[in-house]
């Protein structure tokens, strides 16, 4: 009879085991906030379709202190999403060469973050331009 009795360790609470895992979970948890924001917008859209009074109720709700604090939290998590999204980006890219030199991961992350800054500024400016 075999004397072997391999011991399998539990995975309970694995994400607390290493700071790296905590960071990974923080990245994944941003999705909850992305979902929340999508729901806020969806509700706004539905209220819009229901007419002026309904829509203005939604607008008024956005002005409540609770909503403002909530959106500040959303903003922080969205910025973290942007940051973590472009940080993992180099892992998803094939090995590339420009002028015979390997494109470094930092360059991909940097380009992504730069694109995000430009895109955000563009949205702000366009909305401002269209609104005024």
């Amino acid at each position: 009879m075999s004397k072997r009795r391999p011991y399998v360790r539990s995975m309970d609470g694995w994400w607390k085991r290493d700071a790296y895992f905590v960071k990974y979970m923080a990245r994944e948890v941003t999705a909850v906030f992305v979902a929340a924001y999508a729901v806020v917008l969806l509700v706004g859209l539905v209220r819009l379709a229901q007419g002026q009074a309904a829509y203005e109720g939604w607008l008024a709700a956005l002005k409540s202190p609770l909503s403002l604090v909530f959106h500040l939290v959303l903003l922080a998590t969205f910025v973290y999403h942007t940051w973590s999204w472009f940080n993992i980006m180099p892992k998803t890219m094939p090995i590339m060469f420009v002028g015979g030199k390997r494109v470094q991961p930092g360059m991909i992350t940097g380009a992504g973050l730069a694109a995000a800054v430009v895109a955000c500024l563009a949205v702000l400016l366009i909305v401002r331009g269209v609104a005024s």
Partner: protein
Amino acid sequence: MKRSNEPIFWSLFGAGGMLAALIGPALVLITGIAVPLGILFPADTMSYAHMLAFAQSWIGKILLLAVIALFMWHAAHRIAILLHDFGVHAVTVVKVVCYGLAFAGTVIAAWTLLGL
């Protein structure tokens, strides 16, 4: 080996994640903070008349649907993984619920936009 259907959900996840990463912070800042506070933008930026006109234009419809639906598919994919990471192993149930909600959100958004 069974080919995974993951590419469908992964593509939507990726598209939504990219959109959120690129313009998400700006959108939250506008709709949730600046306009409600009445700073940076004209007071009537998100007025009923403006938003109705926006949602009635084709470009507006496409943008609104893209943001709402893709954000939802992005989130659904990550939340499904998150639950699995936290040890919920009812994989099928988790997926049906998460993707089901994203699908419902997409349908409601599309339906509403078409009706405007």
